[in-house]
């Protein structure tokens, strides 16, 4: 007999209240997760979109990539040994449009690689967000540290770094702007084990992302909020089921006296927990994904299916743990005590 469902049907208000709370907490978690993901994409899409591999910067840079300098001969030798590797640099800067309006960009230049845009001298490839600022293909842009001009040849989707649109330029133009002799970083895609290169330290994709201080600070705060909300939902389950179990101690005792297994009582509680959580999650996932579609274009919001599934599973696990911990009192219930008490 499905006692769990029969109880829920009879005590609708009680379970709807719990379901609403779980829905609100999970909805808030999905929205914040979407914002966290959107912001991290806005902060480092350039790096996040690269395949898994290993980043290298000079040892003396001590993990600060804009202090890193790769020795040109070491770079040539590494590129020879690893055909799919690329050396590249990222520097924040500005471009001025024909109306002399200044736009912040992250200049990126690299050796020949399918991982980065190939750009000829005097040309520039921009992130699509600059198109909304009125820049068009064929426009001419300038930079006060660059003697020549940049002709816009193409726009690319979702290439952001440090919340600024990426501007791919030729290596010679880059060297002129930043008076640089070499590049800052190297990237070798694939490779489970990072090949050891003398004078360079290797970083996995995640390790490298965390060397970007703004990314680390922003991501940590948002992740902390998400985990906090998940912990709250676990506590809510524990408290709610604890209170409900305390009310039902007498009933559990009588059911045990007539021969109901303790496991059956646990299964009843788990069934209620799963039913409430799944209903609340279905509603909050639907609304979050709906919000994902209608979110204003400028809002950095990105909720992936994988992320949603992961968070949903986490909610179920946390709910299960919360309900189970609070249900431990079911095991301790003595039928005799319940019989000696009055009606429930």
């Amino acid at each position: 007999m499905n006692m769990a469902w029969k109880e829920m049907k009879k005590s609708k208000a009680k379970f709807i209240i719990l379901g609403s709370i779980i829905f609100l907490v999970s909805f808030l978690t999905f929205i914040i997760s979407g914002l966290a993901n959107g912001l991290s994409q806005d902060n480092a899409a350039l790096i996040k979109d690269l395949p898994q591999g290993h980043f290298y910067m000079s040892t003396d840079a001590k993990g600060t990539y804009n202090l890193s300098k790769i020795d040109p001969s070491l770079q040539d030798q590494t590129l020879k040994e690893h055909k799919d590797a690329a050396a590249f640099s990222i520097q924040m800067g500005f471009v001025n449009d024909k109306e002399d309006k200044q736009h912040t960009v992250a200049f990126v230049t690299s050796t020949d690689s399918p991982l980065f845009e190939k750009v000829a001298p005097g040309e520039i490839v921009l992130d699509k967000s600059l198109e909304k600022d009125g820049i068009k293909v064929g426009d001419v842009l300038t930079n006060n540290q660059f003697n020549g001009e940049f002709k816009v040849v193409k726009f690319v989707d979702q290439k952001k770094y440090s919340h600024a649109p990426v501007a791919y330029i030729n290596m010679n133009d880059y060297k002129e702007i930043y008076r640089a002799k070499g590049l800052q970083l190297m990237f070798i895609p694939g490779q489970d084990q990072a090949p050891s290169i003398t004078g360079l330290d290797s970083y996995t994709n995640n390790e490298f992302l965390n060397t970007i201080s703004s990314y680390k600070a922003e991501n940590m705060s948002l992740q902390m909020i998400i985990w906090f909300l998940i912990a709250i939902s676990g506590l809510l389950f524990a408290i709610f089921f604890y209170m409900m179990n305390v009310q039902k101690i007498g009933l559990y005792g009588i059911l045990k006296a007539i021969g109901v297994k303790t496991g059956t009582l646990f299964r009843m509680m788990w069934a209620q927990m799963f039913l409430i959580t799944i209903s609340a999650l279905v509603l909050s996932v639907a609304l979050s994904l709906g919000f994902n579609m209608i979110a204003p274009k400028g809002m950095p919001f990105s909720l992936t299916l994988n992320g949603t599934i992961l968070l949903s599973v986490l909610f179920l696990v946390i709910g299960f743990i919360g309900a189970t911990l609070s249900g431990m009192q079911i095991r301790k219930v003595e039928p005799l005590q319940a019989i000696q008490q009055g009606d429930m």
Partner: protein
Amino acid sequence: MTTFTIQDVTKTFTNGEVSEQVLNGINLSLQEGELTALVGASGSGKSTLLTIAAGLQSASDGKVKFDGNNMIGMTQEQIRKIRASKFGFVFQSAHLVPFLTVEDQLMLMLDVAESKMSKHEQKEEVAKVLKLVEMDHRKNAYPASLSGGEKQRVAIARAIIHKPKILFADEPTASLDSKRSRDVMTLIRDLTKKLKITTLMVTHDEEMLPFADRIITMKDGLII
């Protein structure tokens, strides 16, 4: 035919350094189709004896034999199985499940007793037993809408739906008025005879004693 035997059962409660012996070597045999009433003053040990016999607490010493097996020393799971399938319980309060209808209370008991009947057969059996206790017209009612007497009738129906061998009744009429008490006792006596159940009942209400086949009086943990 003897179906249930209690041999030299003792029970001592210990609280710190203080210990109190509430049963001092009880010997008792219960017969099939017989309603046995346990009477005695408060503290005489009658409720303790009933709960030990029902496997709801353990004895300090002695034997409680059911179907030839000593229940003292059985595992909790073995005792639970016996309680679920061979015993029926009627308590002082009806102790019905508040979110189940009258019909569902009985269906639950059939589930607990691991009845081999199909759902359809179970429903038929429930209808039959509800008719027996004259509660068939309230099968869709929840406990909150039943009177005290009706609740106790449902509790009795729940106690006998799985055809137990032993029915334990602990003060089954204590929360009822005289008329309802007599109705409930008539029902317990009739079911004991009709279904050939062995019934052990604790009561302190002398008006209920004429319903019993056998009256056992207890005093200071002994049968007198």
